[in-house]
Protein backbone atom coordinates (compact mmCIF):
# COMPACT_ATOMS: atom_id res chain seq x y z
CA UNK A 1 0.00 0.00 0.00
CA UNK A 2 1.29 3.42 -0.95
CA UNK A 3 0.86 6.46 1.28
CA UNK A 4 1.85 10.04 0.67
CA UNK A 5 2.01 12.10 3.85
CA UNK A 6 2.22 15.91 4.20
CA UNK A 7 4.15 16.34 0.99
CA UNK A 8 5.53 19.70 0.00
CA UNK A 9 6.97 20.18 -3.45
CA UNK A 10 8.61 23.17 -5.08
CA UNK A 11 9.89 23.79 -8.55
CA UNK A 12 12.29 26.72 -8.43
CA UNK A 13 10.61 29.46 -6.46
CA UNK A 14 7.04 28.34 -6.98
CA UNK A 15 5.20 26.16 -4.51
CA UNK A 16 3.45 23.33 -6.35
CA UNK A 17 1.78 21.65 -3.42
CA UNK A 18 1.94 21.70 0.35
CA UNK A 19 0.53 19.30 2.90
CA UNK A 20 -0.54 16.93 0.15
CA UNK A 21 -1.88 13.58 1.33
CA UNK A 22 -2.94 10.56 -0.62
CA UNK A 23 -3.16 6.82 -0.22
CA UNK A 24 -3.44 4.05 -2.72
CA UNK A 25 -4.67 0.58 -1.86
CA UNK A 26 -4.64 -2.72 -3.68
CA UNK A 27 -7.10 -2.75 -6.56
CA UNK A 28 -7.34 1.02 -6.74
CA UNK A 29 -6.49 3.46 -9.50
CA UNK A 30 -5.78 7.12 -8.87
CA UNK A 31 -6.31 9.48 -11.73
CA UNK A 32 -4.34 12.69 -11.14
CA UNK A 33 -5.91 15.73 -12.67
CA UNK A 34 -4.80 19.31 -12.94
CA UNK A 35 -3.99 22.03 -15.43
CA UNK A 36 -0.57 22.25 -17.05
CA UNK A 37 2.13 23.15 -14.57
CA UNK A 38 0.29 22.06 -11.45
CA UNK A 39 2.89 19.45 -10.65
CA UNK A 40 1.43 16.17 -11.91
CA UNK A 41 4.72 14.95 -13.34
CA UNK A 42 6.68 16.32 -10.36
CA UNK A 43 4.41 14.37 -8.01
CA UNK A 44 4.79 11.16 -10.02
CA UNK A 45 8.57 11.57 -10.03
CA UNK A 46 8.62 12.06 -6.27
CA UNK A 47 6.38 9.04 -5.72
CA UNK A 48 8.58 6.90 -7.93
CA UNK A 49 11.69 8.06 -6.05
CA UNK A 50 13.29 9.93 -8.95
CA UNK A 51 13.01 13.36 -7.33
CA UNK A 52 13.07 14.45 -3.72
CA UNK A 53 10.42 16.46 -1.96
CA UNK A 54 10.97 19.48 0.31
CA UNK A 55 9.17 17.89 3.24
CA UNK A 56 6.83 14.99 3.81
CA UNK A 57 7.07 11.29 3.19
CA UNK A 58 6.21 8.64 0.66
CA UNK A 59 5.61 5.29 2.35
CA UNK A 60 5.44 1.87 0.71
CA UNK A 61 3.93 -0.67 3.11
CA UNK A 62 4.68 1.83 5.87
CA UNK A 63 8.41 2.04 5.05
CA UNK A 64 9.88 5.26 3.68
CA UNK A 65 10.81 4.63 0.03
CA UNK A 66 14.13 6.44 0.56
CA UNK A 67 15.27 3.87 3.11
CA UNK A 68 14.19 0.84 1.09
CA UNK A 69 14.89 2.07 -2.41
CA UNK A 70 15.71 -1.27 -4.02
CA UNK A 71 12.84 -3.18 -2.47
CA UNK A 72 10.50 -0.40 -3.60
CA UNK A 73 11.88 -0.25 -7.16
CA UNK A 74 11.35 -3.96 -7.58
CA UNK A 75 7.64 -3.43 -6.90
CA UNK A 76 7.28 -0.58 -9.31
CA UNK A 77 6.87 0.11 -13.00
CA UNK A 78 7.34 3.75 -13.92
CA UNK A 79 6.68 4.88 -17.45
CA UNK A 80 7.47 8.53 -17.89
CA UNK A 81 6.88 11.17 -20.53
CA UNK A 82 9.74 9.89 -22.61
CA UNK A 83 9.25 6.35 -23.83
CA UNK A 84 12.79 5.25 -22.80
CA UNK A 85 13.50 3.58 -26.12
CA UNK A 86 16.90 3.26 -27.74
CA UNK A 87 16.68 4.26 -31.40
CA UNK A 88 19.63 2.09 -32.39
CA UNK A 89 18.21 -1.13 -30.94
CA UNK A 90 15.46 -3.12 -32.59
CA UNK A 91 11.96 -3.30 -31.15
CA UNK A 92 12.60 -6.77 -29.76
CA UNK A 93 16.00 -5.80 -28.34
CA UNK A 94 14.52 -2.75 -26.63
CA UNK A 95 11.88 -4.83 -24.91
CA UNK A 96 14.34 -7.60 -23.97
CA UNK A 97 16.81 -5.16 -22.45
CA UNK A 98 14.21 -3.27 -20.44
CA UNK A 99 12.94 -6.55 -18.99
CA UNK A 100 16.38 -7.98 -18.28
CA UNK A 101 17.48 -4.77 -16.56
CA UNK A 102 14.58 -5.23 -14.20
CA UNK A 103 15.49 -8.81 -13.46
CA UNK A 104 12.59 -10.36 -15.36
CA UNK A 105 13.23 -13.73 -16.94
CA UNK A 106 12.89 -13.30 -20.68
CA UNK A 107 10.83 -15.87 -22.52
CA UNK A 108 10.99 -15.09 -26.22
CA UNK A 109 7.55 -16.59 -26.91
CA UNK A 110 5.83 -14.43 -24.32
CA UNK A 111 7.72 -11.41 -25.63
CA UNK A 112 6.43 -12.00 -29.11
CA UNK A 113 2.91 -12.49 -27.79
CA UNK A 114 3.11 -9.15 -26.00
CA UNK A 115 4.36 -7.45 -29.16
CA UNK A 116 1.45 -9.08 -30.98
CA UNK A 117 -0.96 -7.60 -28.42
CA UNK A 118 0.41 -4.07 -28.80
CA UNK A 119 0.50 -4.48 -32.56
CA UNK A 120 4.24 -4.39 -33.15
CA UNK A 121 4.86 -8.04 -33.98
CA UNK A 122 5.54 -7.35 -37.64
CA UNK A 123 8.07 -4.66 -36.76
CA UNK A 124 9.95 -6.61 -34.11
CA UNK A 125 13.23 -6.66 -36.01
CA UNK A 126 13.17 -3.06 -37.16
CA UNK A 127 15.29 -0.45 -35.40
CA UNK A 128 13.15 1.61 -33.05
CA UNK A 129 14.08 4.81 -34.83
CA UNK A 130 11.59 4.04 -37.62
CA UNK A 131 8.65 3.85 -35.20
CA UNK A 132 6.06 6.61 -35.00
CA UNK A 133 5.29 8.37 -31.70
CA UNK A 134 2.27 6.17 -31.11
CA UNK A 135 4.23 3.01 -31.85
CA UNK A 136 6.95 4.10 -29.44
CA UNK A 137 4.34 4.57 -26.75
CA UNK A 138 2.95 1.10 -27.52
CA UNK A 139 6.43 -0.38 -27.24
CA UNK A 140 7.12 1.21 -23.85
CA UNK A 141 3.72 0.04 -22.62
CA UNK A 142 4.38 -3.54 -23.79
CA UNK A 143 6.24 -4.08 -20.53
CA UNK A 144 2.91 -3.91 -18.70
CA UNK A 145 1.95 -7.24 -20.29
CA UNK A 146 5.17 -8.98 -19.28
CA UNK A 147 6.32 -7.69 -15.92
CA UNK A 148 4.15 -8.53 -12.91
CA UNK A 149 4.54 -5.76 -10.38
CA UNK A 150 1.94 -4.39 -8.00
CA UNK A 151 2.46 -0.65 -8.50
CA UNK A 152 2.24 1.15 -11.82
CA UNK A 153 3.10 4.83 -12.15
CA UNK A 154 2.18 6.07 -15.60
CA UNK A 155 2.71 9.61 -16.84
CA UNK A 156 0.27 10.39 -19.63
CA UNK A 157 0.11 6.79 -20.86
CA UNK A 158 -2.71 7.55 -23.31
CA UNK A 159 -0.71 10.23 -25.13
CA UNK A 160 -0.20 9.53 -28.82
CA UNK A 161 -2.22 6.30 -28.63
CA UNK A 162 -5.02 5.68 -31.12
CA UNK A 163 -8.55 4.64 -30.14
CA UNK A 164 -7.82 0.94 -30.37
CA UNK A 165 -4.65 1.15 -28.25
CA UNK A 166 -6.52 3.31 -25.74
CA UNK A 167 -9.05 0.54 -25.30
CA UNK A 168 -6.31 -2.06 -25.05
CA UNK A 169 -4.56 -0.17 -22.27
CA UNK A 170 -7.84 0.36 -20.41
CA UNK A 171 -8.51 -3.37 -20.55
CA UNK A 172 -5.04 -4.10 -19.23
CA UNK A 173 -5.53 -1.56 -16.42
CA UNK A 174 -8.80 -3.28 -15.52
CA UNK A 175 -7.11 -6.69 -15.38
CA UNK A 176 -4.30 -5.26 -13.26
CA UNK A 177 -6.72 -3.71 -10.75
CA UNK A 178 -8.89 -6.81 -10.55
CA UNK A 179 -5.83 -8.88 -9.68
CA UNK A 180 -5.32 -6.33 -6.83
CA UNK A 181 -2.69 -4.22 -8.56
CA UNK A 182 -2.38 -0.50 -7.98
CA UNK A 183 -1.97 2.31 -10.43
CA UNK A 184 -1.51 6.03 -10.37
CA UNK A 185 -1.66 7.89 -13.65
CA UNK A 186 -2.06 11.30 -15.18
CA UNK A 187 -4.24 11.78 -18.20
CA UNK A 188 -6.37 14.47 -19.79
CA UNK A 189 -9.31 12.15 -20.17
CA UNK A 190 -10.79 9.93 -17.52
CA UNK A 191 -9.84 6.30 -18.17
CA UNK A 192 -12.87 4.25 -19.05
CA UNK A 193 -12.73 1.65 -16.28
CA UNK A 194 -14.98 0.47 -13.46
CA UNK A 195 -15.87 3.61 -11.48
CA UNK A 196 -15.65 1.73 -8.17
CA UNK A 197 -11.92 1.24 -8.73
CA UNK A 198 -11.26 4.80 -9.82
CA UNK A 199 -10.37 7.72 -7.54
CA UNK A 200 -9.99 11.21 -8.92
CA UNK A 201 -7.40 13.50 -7.32
CA UNK A 202 -7.12 17.10 -8.40
CA UNK A 203 -3.91 19.09 -8.12
CA UNK A 204 -3.51 22.83 -8.14
CA UNK A 205 -3.51 25.25 -5.22
Amino acid at each position, binding site marked *: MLKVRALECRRGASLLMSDFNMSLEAGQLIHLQGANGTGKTSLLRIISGLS*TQETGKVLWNDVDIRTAR*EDYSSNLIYI*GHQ*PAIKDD*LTVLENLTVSLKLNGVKVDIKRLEEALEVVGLARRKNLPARVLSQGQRRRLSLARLWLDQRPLWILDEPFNALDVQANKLLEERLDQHLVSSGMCILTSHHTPNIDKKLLTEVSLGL
Partner: protein
Amino acid sequence: MKIAGILQALLWRDIKLAMRRQSDVVATLFFFVVAVSLFPLGIGSAPSLMHAIGPGVIWVAALLSSMLSLNRLFSSDYADGTLEQLLLVPMPLTLILAIKIFAHWIVAGLPLVILAPILGLQFDMGAKDIGILVLSLILGTPLLSLIGAIGAALILGMRGGGVLLAILVLPLYIPVLIFGAGAVTASVNGISPEGALSLIAAMLTLGVVFAPFAAAVALRISLE
Protein backbone atom coordinates in the same frame (compact mmCIF):
# COMPACT_ATOMS: atom_id res chain seq x y z
CA MET B 1 22.47 -14.69 -10.06
CA LYS B 2 19.81 -12.11 -10.69
CA ILE B 3 22.29 -9.29 -10.11
CA ALA B 4 24.79 -10.82 -12.54
CA GLY B 5 22.03 -11.11 -15.14
CA ILE B 6 21.09 -7.45 -14.81
CA LEU B 7 24.69 -6.26 -15.01
CA GLN B 8 25.37 -8.48 -18.00
CA ALA B 9 22.31 -7.09 -19.80
CA LEU B 10 23.52 -3.55 -19.17
CA LEU B 11 27.03 -4.28 -20.42
CA TRP B 12 25.62 -5.97 -23.52
CA ARG B 13 23.33 -3.01 -24.15
CA ASP B 14 26.04 -0.36 -23.90
CA ILE B 15 28.51 -2.23 -26.09
CA LYS B 16 25.83 -3.06 -28.64
CA LEU B 17 24.77 0.59 -28.81
CA ALA B 18 28.38 1.65 -29.38
CA MET B 19 28.72 -0.96 -32.12
CA ARG B 20 25.59 0.40 -33.82
CA ARG B 21 27.28 3.82 -33.81
CA GLN B 22 30.69 2.74 -35.02
CA SER B 23 31.38 6.12 -36.60
CA ASP B 24 31.69 7.64 -33.11
CA VAL B 25 34.19 5.01 -32.01
CA VAL B 26 36.21 5.24 -35.20
CA ALA B 27 36.25 9.05 -35.09
CA THR B 28 37.79 8.97 -31.61
CA LEU B 29 40.46 6.52 -32.74
CA PHE B 30 41.17 8.54 -35.85
CA PHE B 31 41.65 11.62 -33.67
CA PHE B 32 44.11 9.68 -31.52
CA VAL B 33 46.22 8.58 -34.48
CA VAL B 34 46.17 11.94 -36.26
CA ALA B 35 46.90 13.98 -33.14
CA VAL B 36 49.92 11.81 -32.36
CA SER B 37 51.15 11.91 -35.97
CA LEU B 38 50.98 15.71 -36.16
CA PHE B 39 53.79 16.20 -33.66
CA PRO B 40 56.67 14.74 -35.71
CA LEU B 41 55.41 16.76 -38.68
CA GLY B 42 55.42 19.98 -36.69
CA ILE B 43 58.52 19.53 -34.58
CA GLY B 44 60.76 17.48 -36.84
CA SER B 45 61.77 13.88 -36.55
CA ALA B 46 65.29 13.74 -35.10
CA PRO B 47 65.54 10.42 -33.18
CA SER B 48 66.66 12.06 -29.93
CA LEU B 49 63.67 14.41 -30.09
CA MET B 50 61.30 11.51 -30.83
CA HIS B 51 62.55 9.62 -27.79
CA ALA B 52 62.07 12.69 -25.63
CA ILE B 53 58.53 13.62 -26.68
CA GLY B 54 57.08 10.24 -27.72
CA PRO B 55 55.67 9.04 -24.38
CA GLY B 56 54.20 12.42 -23.50
CA VAL B 57 52.60 12.95 -26.90
CA ILE B 58 50.97 9.52 -26.99
CA TRP B 59 49.67 9.91 -23.46
CA VAL B 60 48.27 13.41 -24.02
CA ALA B 61 46.52 12.26 -27.19
CA ALA B 62 45.08 9.20 -25.39
CA LEU B 63 43.80 11.45 -22.65
CA LEU B 64 42.12 13.86 -25.06
CA SER B 65 40.52 11.18 -27.20
CA SER B 66 39.21 9.36 -24.15
CA MET B 67 37.66 12.66 -23.08
CA LEU B 68 36.03 13.19 -26.47
CA SER B 69 33.72 10.25 -25.90
CA LEU B 70 32.86 11.07 -22.29
CA ASN B 71 29.94 13.24 -23.31
CA ARG B 72 28.15 10.22 -24.69
CA LEU B 73 28.45 8.27 -21.45
CA PHE B 74 25.17 9.58 -20.04
CA SER B 75 23.81 12.22 -22.40
CA SER B 76 22.06 9.95 -24.91
CA ASP B 77 20.51 7.86 -22.13
CA TYR B 78 19.43 11.10 -20.52
CA ALA B 79 17.89 12.43 -23.72
CA ASP B 80 15.70 9.41 -24.46
CA GLY B 81 14.61 8.73 -20.89
CA THR B 82 16.45 5.43 -20.42
CA LEU B 83 18.60 6.96 -17.69
CA GLU B 84 15.47 7.41 -15.54
CA GLN B 85 14.73 3.73 -16.00
CA LEU B 86 18.30 2.86 -14.99
CA LEU B 87 17.80 4.81 -11.76
CA LEU B 88 14.77 2.62 -11.05
CA VAL B 89 16.56 -0.66 -11.64
CA PRO B 90 16.36 -2.51 -8.32
CA MET B 91 20.08 -2.39 -7.68
CA PRO B 92 22.57 0.14 -6.22
CA LEU B 93 23.27 2.92 -8.71
CA THR B 94 26.98 2.63 -7.91
CA LEU B 95 27.08 -0.86 -9.41
CA ILE B 96 25.16 0.22 -12.48
CA LEU B 97 27.56 3.09 -13.09
CA ALA B 98 30.57 0.82 -12.54
CA ILE B 99 29.28 -1.31 -15.42
CA LYS B 100 28.58 1.71 -17.63
CA ILE B 101 32.11 3.00 -16.98
CA PHE B 102 33.54 -0.43 -17.79
CA ALA B 103 31.58 -0.44 -21.05
CA HIS B 104 32.91 3.03 -21.83
CA TRP B 105 36.45 1.79 -21.28
CA ILE B 106 35.93 -1.21 -23.58
CA VAL B 107 34.64 1.07 -26.32
CA ALA B 108 36.82 4.15 -25.83
CA GLY B 109 39.87 3.06 -23.84
CA LEU B 110 40.75 -0.45 -24.94
CA PRO B 111 41.07 0.47 -28.65
CA LEU B 112 43.63 3.13 -27.66
CA VAL B 113 45.65 0.49 -25.84
CA ILE B 114 45.53 -1.73 -28.91
CA LEU B 115 46.59 1.05 -31.29
CA ALA B 116 49.35 2.42 -29.07
CA PRO B 117 52.13 -0.02 -30.14
CA ILE B 118 51.86 1.17 -33.75
CA LEU B 119 52.18 4.77 -32.63
CA GLY B 120 55.06 3.78 -30.39
CA LEU B 121 56.91 2.45 -33.45
CA GLN B 122 56.36 5.83 -35.07
CA PHE B 123 58.43 7.34 -32.26
CA ASP B 124 61.19 4.76 -32.62
CA MET B 125 60.43 3.00 -29.33
CA GLY B 126 61.98 -0.38 -28.60
CA ALA B 127 59.96 -3.50 -27.84
CA LYS B 128 60.47 -3.16 -24.11
CA ASP B 129 59.39 0.50 -24.09
CA ILE B 130 56.31 -0.33 -26.13
CA GLY B 131 55.48 -3.01 -23.59
CA ILE B 132 55.67 -0.43 -20.80
CA LEU B 133 53.59 2.00 -22.88
CA VAL B 134 50.85 -0.60 -23.30
CA LEU B 135 51.00 -1.54 -19.64
CA SER B 136 50.77 2.09 -18.53
CA LEU B 137 47.79 2.63 -20.81
CA ILE B 138 46.05 -0.55 -19.59
CA LEU B 139 46.33 0.79 -16.04
CA GLY B 140 45.72 4.42 -16.93
CA THR B 141 42.86 4.48 -19.45
CA PRO B 142 40.30 2.87 -17.07
CA LEU B 143 41.23 5.60 -14.62
CA LEU B 144 40.45 8.20 -17.30
CA SER B 145 36.97 6.67 -17.79
CA LEU B 146 36.40 6.51 -14.02
CA ILE B 147 37.38 10.13 -13.34
CA GLY B 148 35.62 11.31 -16.47
CA ALA B 149 32.37 9.66 -15.42
CA ILE B 150 32.18 11.86 -12.33
CA GLY B 151 32.52 14.95 -14.52
CA ALA B 152 30.06 13.65 -17.11
CA ALA B 153 27.50 12.98 -14.38
CA LEU B 154 27.92 16.46 -12.92
CA ILE B 155 27.45 18.36 -16.17
CA LEU B 156 24.48 16.30 -17.34
CA GLY B 157 21.69 18.43 -18.74
CA MET B 158 23.72 21.64 -18.75
CA ARG B 159 24.09 23.86 -21.77
CA GLY B 160 27.61 24.04 -23.18
CA GLY B 161 28.48 21.01 -21.11
CA GLY B 162 31.27 19.88 -23.43
CA VAL B 163 33.68 22.69 -22.63
CA LEU B 164 32.76 22.61 -18.97
CA LEU B 165 33.49 18.90 -18.91
CA ALA B 166 36.99 19.52 -20.26
CA ILE B 167 37.65 22.24 -17.67
CA LEU B 168 36.36 20.00 -14.92
CA VAL B 169 38.05 16.77 -15.89
CA LEU B 170 41.40 17.73 -17.46
CA PRO B 171 42.98 18.99 -14.20
CA LEU B 172 41.99 15.71 -12.55
CA TYR B 173 43.72 13.80 -15.35
CA ILE B 174 47.07 15.45 -14.58
CA PRO B 175 48.33 12.86 -12.05
CA VAL B 176 47.45 10.04 -14.44
CA LEU B 177 49.32 11.81 -17.23
CA ILE B 178 52.39 12.49 -15.10
CA PHE B 179 52.84 8.92 -13.93
CA GLY B 180 51.64 7.32 -17.19
CA ALA B 181 54.00 9.28 -19.42
CA GLY B 182 56.59 9.18 -16.65
CA ALA B 183 56.68 5.39 -16.64
CA VAL B 184 57.33 5.25 -20.38
CA THR B 185 59.93 8.05 -20.29
CA ALA B 186 61.74 6.26 -17.50
CA SER B 187 61.78 3.06 -19.52
CA VAL B 188 63.04 4.90 -22.64
CA ASN B 189 65.86 6.38 -20.54
CA GLY B 190 66.76 3.01 -19.09
CA ILE B 191 65.38 3.66 -15.61
CA SER B 192 62.98 1.24 -13.93
CA PRO B 193 59.33 2.31 -14.56
CA GLU B 194 58.13 0.23 -11.63
CA GLY B 195 57.53 3.12 -9.25
CA ALA B 196 55.35 5.12 -11.66
CA LEU B 197 53.41 2.02 -12.71
CA SER B 198 52.74 1.04 -9.09
CA LEU B 199 51.43 4.54 -8.42
CA ILE B 200 49.00 4.36 -11.35
CA ALA B 201 47.89 0.92 -10.18
CA ALA B 202 47.28 2.37 -6.73
CA MET B 203 45.29 5.26 -8.20
CA LEU B 204 43.30 2.81 -10.31
CA THR B 205 42.41 0.79 -7.23
CA LEU B 206 41.22 3.92 -5.47
CA GLY B 207 39.32 4.98 -8.58
CA VAL B 208 37.52 1.64 -8.97
CA VAL B 209 36.36 1.82 -5.37
CA PHE B 210 35.35 5.47 -5.11
CA ALA B 211 34.65 6.88 -8.60
CA PRO B 212 31.41 4.94 -9.32
CA PHE B 213 30.11 5.99 -5.94
CA ALA B 214 30.99 9.66 -6.54
CA ALA B 215 29.47 9.49 -10.03
CA ALA B 216 26.25 8.02 -8.57
CA VAL B 217 25.95 10.89 -6.11
CA ALA B 218 26.67 13.41 -8.88
CA LEU B 219 24.09 11.80 -11.16
CA ARG B 220 21.35 11.91 -8.53
CA ILE B 221 22.09 15.61 -8.00
CA SER B 222 21.99 16.33 -11.75
CA LEU B 223 18.71 14.51 -12.24
CA GLU B 224 16.80 16.13 -9.38
